[in-house]
């Protein structure tokens, strides 16, 4: 774990001429190595709070400590060089190449050329930039690529803390989904303390280890892991902010592997007609799934089978199982598959095809209730 914890104590920000403070006294801890998401409606001070951490905005009152050290004890530029900063408009320097952009903070810190180049190459691989792009200028890159460079630039000096202000807001939804997944993958490798501001609740639930919901004026309504936020919102504001589809949103947090799977209408190829009939009756469907050596091989509609012989599945024409899930699939994906599958049943197999069980609506409901 390379991150350090951030603590905000009594942090307040008032702008001149405003009646109420933009951020009322705020107490919040961002745990080391976690992604903490700040979310809330316009005017809740989430961006202001973020920018107080690297002192782009100075608090009117209160203290902020990183790793136990008050941020005011360091010089301004030293502080900022030890914190990564990613913004919505990306803000790459148009007059420098991708490699030079990434190397900005190392250069400011005085690293030598060899070390800088090595680090740039390492980061390019980490965020998924092709090495051939390092010599290009930002204007030649797409939005998604530019933001990847932005993230690489923020991580260049290996800061323990990373601040992200609506980092994926400026790209289209498909690219955004990719970038979100890549951020999670990245975090699993580097374990930084990340503070991320967003206004998208789905993004918060997907990315956050803990989510802090702020109300207008910087009032902290609730801070909790996403599942707790969805299952037990602290008050009416939080529950209405999180939205009505809390149950469905929770589905995206749980995984199929955690469910108690049913045996399902699946038999080995050598199975007898009796076994087939038994499995089909138990599941209440009109088809049968087939495994070879425990691996899911396909399925056959009952009508296509001749149930009178021995081993009726031998030589039967198998169809590929489309409604298939992995143990790592989210319950939300499972629900999606079930809704479109034949007989509303999906089969679960792991990466090498080993059949694990079947999932139906009942299975999911059973899993949520626990």
């Amino acid at each position, binding site marked *: 774990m390379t991150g350090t914890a951030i603590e905000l104590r009594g942090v307040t920000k008032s702008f001149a001429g405003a009646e109420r403070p933009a951020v009322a006294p705020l107490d919040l801890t961002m745990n080391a190595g976690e992604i903490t998401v700040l979310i809330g409606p316009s005017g809740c001070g989430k961006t202001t709070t973020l920018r107080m951490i690297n002192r782009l905005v100075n608090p009117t009152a209160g203290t902020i400590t990183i790793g136990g050290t008050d941020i005011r004890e360091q010089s301004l530029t030293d502080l900022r*060089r030890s914190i990564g900063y990613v913004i919505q408009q990306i803000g790459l*320097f*148009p*007059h420098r190449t991708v490699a030079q952009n990434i190397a900005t903070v190392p250069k400011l810190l005085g690293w030598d050329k060899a070390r800088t180049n090595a680090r740039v190459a390492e980061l390019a691989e980490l965020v998924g930039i092709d090495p051939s792009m390092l010599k290009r200028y930002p*204007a*030649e890159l797409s939005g998604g690529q530019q933001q990847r460079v932005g993230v690489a630039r923020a991580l260049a000096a290996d800061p323990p803390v990373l601040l992200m202000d609506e980092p994926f807001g400026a790209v289209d939804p498909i690219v955004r989904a990719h970038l979100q997944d890549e951020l999670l993958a990245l975090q699993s490798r580097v374990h930084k303390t990340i503070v991320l501001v967003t206004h998208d609740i789905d993004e918060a639930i997907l990315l956050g280890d803990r989510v802090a919901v702020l109300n207008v004026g910087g009032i902290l309504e609730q801070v909790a892991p996403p599942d707790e936020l969805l299952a037990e919102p602290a008050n009416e504001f939080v529950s209405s902010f999180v939205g009505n589809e809390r149950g469905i949103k929770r589905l995206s947090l749980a995984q199929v592997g955690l469910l108690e799977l049913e045996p399902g209408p699946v038999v080995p190829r050598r199975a007898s007609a009796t076994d087939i009939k038994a499995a089909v009756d138990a599941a209440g469907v009109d088809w049968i799934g087939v495994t070879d050596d425990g691996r899911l091989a396909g399925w056959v509609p009952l009508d296509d089978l001749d149930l009178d012989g021995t081993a009726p599945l031998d030589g039967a024409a198998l169809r590929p199982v489309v409604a298939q899930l992995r143990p790592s699939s989210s319950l939300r994906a499972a629900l999606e598959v079930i809704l479109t599958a034949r007989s509303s049943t999906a089969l679960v197999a792991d990466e090498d095809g080993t059949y694990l069980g079947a999932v139906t609506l009942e299975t999911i409901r059973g899993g949520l209730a626990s």
Partner: protein
Amino acid sequence: MTTRRKVTCAVLAVGLIAFGIWAANRISGLSEDTQATNPLFRWEYLFTRERTPEELWQNTREHLELTVWSVLIGIVLSAVLSALVLRFRWLRAAIFTFAGVLYTIPSIALFAILSTYNSNFTAAIIALTSYTLLILTRNFVAGIDAVPQAALDAADGLGMSRVQRLAKVEIPLAMPVILTGIRVATVTVVGLVGISAVIQLGGLATYIFDGYNRNYPTLMVLGTVATIILAVALDLVIRGVEWVATPWAHRRVAR
């Protein structure tokens, strides 16, 4: 290079070569005494008269001196003025109006009146510099204002000091507009230098007035063409500097 650019270059090249051949034809066999068939421009003045290259060089040098000094001093003064405008926004109207008024004063008048209090050369430099102020200040300010806010925010967030941000981000990104301003100012000054002939300077335009006074059209043509060539040459040189200094501004977008 786009096809249009290539075609333009090709046409210009062909035209120049054709002109060169025609001119060479005319020149061969001429001596100082020969009456050229075209009284408008006597080629022998340019190519066979002994003192011409030296005089040409003298005038060019004078022209360049006036131009370069004025533009350089103009850049320094405009940098100061722009810094003031950028720092104290309320000065903007005052400074631009001041520079604008200077710009409006006809150069012949400014040359004349300054020369009554200074040497001719000084008067010319002061006048020419004052003409560059409006163009340069306006472009310097516009250039810095055009720098995207996101890049500045990122620079701050990454830990650049104010000075580092200015030197590494703001000024480089403002370069295209700044260099364009310098180019326009330079070409403008080249044109104005000619008018300093009224106070016995004039650079290459001296030829124009000599030719007029002595009723010798060759000199007028020479002065005219030489001034234009100088203006074009300086324009191209600075465009070249622009091209080299801002590689990022003209790369193709590969989206």
